[in-house]
């Protein structure tokens, strides 16, 4: 790992672009500049990779969440919608 830290100017400047970069919405010029920087800065590469992984893990985890049947039944009951309760 190189000596370069994120308090140093260039890494700090690029920090503001990271969200757009992982979303693929960063403008072409800034994107090229960031990728050029990433080639020479292993710390920033770790930050970008783990940032992307963080977003991905939350996505994956959310897909597995379901509404518990009892919560659904109580909600329908609270809203006087029992007649419309289909089997979950």
């Amino acid at each position, binding site marked *: *790992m190189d000596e370069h830290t*994120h*308090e140093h100017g260039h*890494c*700090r400047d690029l*920090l*503001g672009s*990271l*969200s*757009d970069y*992982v979303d693929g919405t960063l403008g072409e010029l800034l994107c090229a500049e960031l990728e050029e920087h990433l080639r020479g800065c292993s*710390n920033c590469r*770790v*930050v970008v*990779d*783990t*940032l992307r*992984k*963080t*977003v991905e*893990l*939350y*996505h*994956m*985890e*959310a897909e597995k*969440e*379901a*509404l518990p049947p009892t*919560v*659904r039944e*109580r*909600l*329908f009951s*609270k*809203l006087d*919608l029992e007649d*419309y309760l*289909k089997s979950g």
Partner: protein
Amino acid sequence: MNDRLNFDIAALKAGDRSEFARLVEETSPKIYRLLLKMLGDEADAEDALQDAYLKALRSLPNFEERSSLSTWLYRIAVNEALMQIRKRKPQVALGEDNGDDSEDVPAPVELADFCCLPESELMSGEGKQQLNRAVQTLSPPLRAVFLLRDVEDLSVRETADALGVSEQVVKTRLLRARLKLRDELSAYWSERVAAQKVEGE
């Protein structure tokens, strides 16, 4: 959740029970998930879920269609969650970073590359607990932006509409939230990453 579901808005506004039941059926799993992650507590999430739909039912006749129906529901749900959080003790309600919207983003501290860990470990029961714990370290304003954008998949524009803030504020809060979560997860996994390096040597 999006409006591909094609609800009959005129019927909803006119008080059609069957259409409202369909709306609840289709949207409640995602609204509950959002509330559970906003509040970090099942009982609180269920209370907020019921209150949000009661409020939606009362407000439907006045729905002005300036935003999509799903964005409107998310807005009601987030407001319910924020109200619940305000009711709690102040030390629980206040995160470390209380909606600071300056562009000066704190620098990443942790540099453990946890991408190298197996997915089965990152997504294990313990791994998921860490994901949930980390979300609770965000201040409520950052948490709301992160959950709407990255978990519920709303666009920046829709997130801004749901929260009543500008798109720039959404972007700034999203970056802060993501970096904070990344730091939290890196700190948590750092020992495992170090151990794996040693195993590999």
